[in-house]
């Protein structure tokens, strides 16, 4: 039951201190990209399943 540090919290906490174009700034953008790709993959997977279900059971 420890506190944890999620990717999004990491970005939120550190971005105010990151100067434009610096290393930290770019690392945080990398964090955002990773987060984006994770959700993108999950969402696309869910969407494909939805599409299949829709095909199987007609409209909606």
């Amino acid at each position: 039951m420890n506190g944890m540090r999620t990717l999004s919290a990491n970005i939120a906490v550190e971005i105010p201190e990151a100067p434009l174009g610096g290393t930290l700034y770019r690392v945080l953008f990398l964090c955002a990209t990773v987060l984006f790709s994770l959700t993108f993959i999950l969402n696309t997977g869910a969407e494909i399943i939805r599409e299949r279900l829709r095909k199987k059971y007609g409209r909606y």
Partner: protein
Amino acid sequence: MKNFWRRGEPFVWATGLTLSIIISMTALLLYVVIINGIGVFWPQRLLQLNLKDGQTQLGELTQEELDPSKASRLQLKIGNRELNGLDFTWISEADIRSRSYPDEVYAIERQEYGNFYGFLKEVHSLEPSVTEKDGGLGQALARTRQQVASLLAKERQINSQFNALNSAIDQIDQQLARYRYQQVAEQDQQMQTLGEQKNTLKAQFAELVEDGQRNTEQLTAYYALFQSADGKESKVLLANMVRLYQPNQMGLLQKFGHYGGKLRELLVDDPRESNTEGGLFPAIFGTVTLVLLMSILSFPLGVIAGIYLREYAHEGILVKIVRIAVNNLAGIPSIVYGIFGLGFFVYGIGGLLDQVFFPERLPNPTFGTGGLLWASLTLGLLTIPVVIVATKEALGSIPPSIREGSLALGATRFQTLTRLLLPMASPGIMTGFILAMARAAGEVAPLMITGVVKLAPALPIDGQFPFFHLNRKFMHLGFHIYDIGFQSPNVEAAKPMVYVTTLLLILIVLALCSLAIYFRNTMRKRYAIADV
């Protein structure tokens, strides 16, 4: 037994149970916030504790811990920060000799150092000072406060003149900087006149500063001497008194009056004491402006995109990809939007705008830093998918017979769309709009990096040309909660304010949504599908 399972009775029960759990969780949330938030402004009686070691403590009772295994103890808000250093203290029940509620005790809210609880000893003003022996201290204090009120009004007036002059000088400076950037010669006519104008303004400024200093000096002559419960004396300038009351003497009506006054202060005044006291007006204003601006920016885009996807686009691989993309947009964590807003809007577009339109001010950013416009654009992006999906569903739920009938009567597709389909779909579109608005009002993470600040020096809309200052930073209720709840130096004192702010945020979201729901219902009445 087989029959029992086939009927599915337990599943019906399970669905009901789940629903009731959800409702009770919502109710619990509201209950906690309301219970903690609604009583904050109610004037508490001041409790005086005589301790066994001879000390006395005076303050508001804030918590009582009744622990049967250990000694029970109670928490007192003792205020008087300049004497005690701390606002709160814990006192063990075993140490208390007696409790009392002295009638003549005063509670004072001050501009700095928090509250003061104590007994009035002397009142000093330009008239001969009044001490305890003379009697009539209370009346003397009230009289003096009235005298101070006019001086304070003058101070406020001076301050507003001060700000006006400051911004005028700022504007001239910017104009000068622009001319210098365009390499207009220093001897040029325009430059000369601007310089002269600036000098006259500066002279006025110096005069005003002197005026202000004189006024402040005059104000220091008015003060009252108070004694705390343990006998220490403290001088309180009348100019620093925000509110003065005697909670142990107040009747119910007076308490209601006090409550109303505090509520008014909350809604229309600026915060003080690093946001833990005073009003929330800038934050309320910022939240509402943000949500409205976000709606204006995102709503048309979402609706138009939804119309195209539903009415004009042919079902194919491209539309499928777009649909997946829209659903993806709805599912991305909001902080990613924030990062995008920072990289694209703030540093990208904002930086470009600065280079094109305000090159003379660089390296100080004008649009190249977080601001209201960028924050609302980011939020708009976040809510567009919701609007798109709602528009699509609303258009899809209109029976095809209406479409066909309209086309059969000779209307074009566009006429059918604008005169029949859109009005009929408008309640459904509004539902999506409400959902989008509620989501936007509660979102804090993307705002933190695109323009919200703890304390904004000026509102984004004010009386100075060009009236809408969309590049300004702003305050937001959600961020305010985060800031005073977790970043405040005096967490214990900030706790009541956290609940009040939360309650206020809930109420504002509720008010905005009810407004939208009201519009939806009038639309629904006007274009009721059942009547067609």
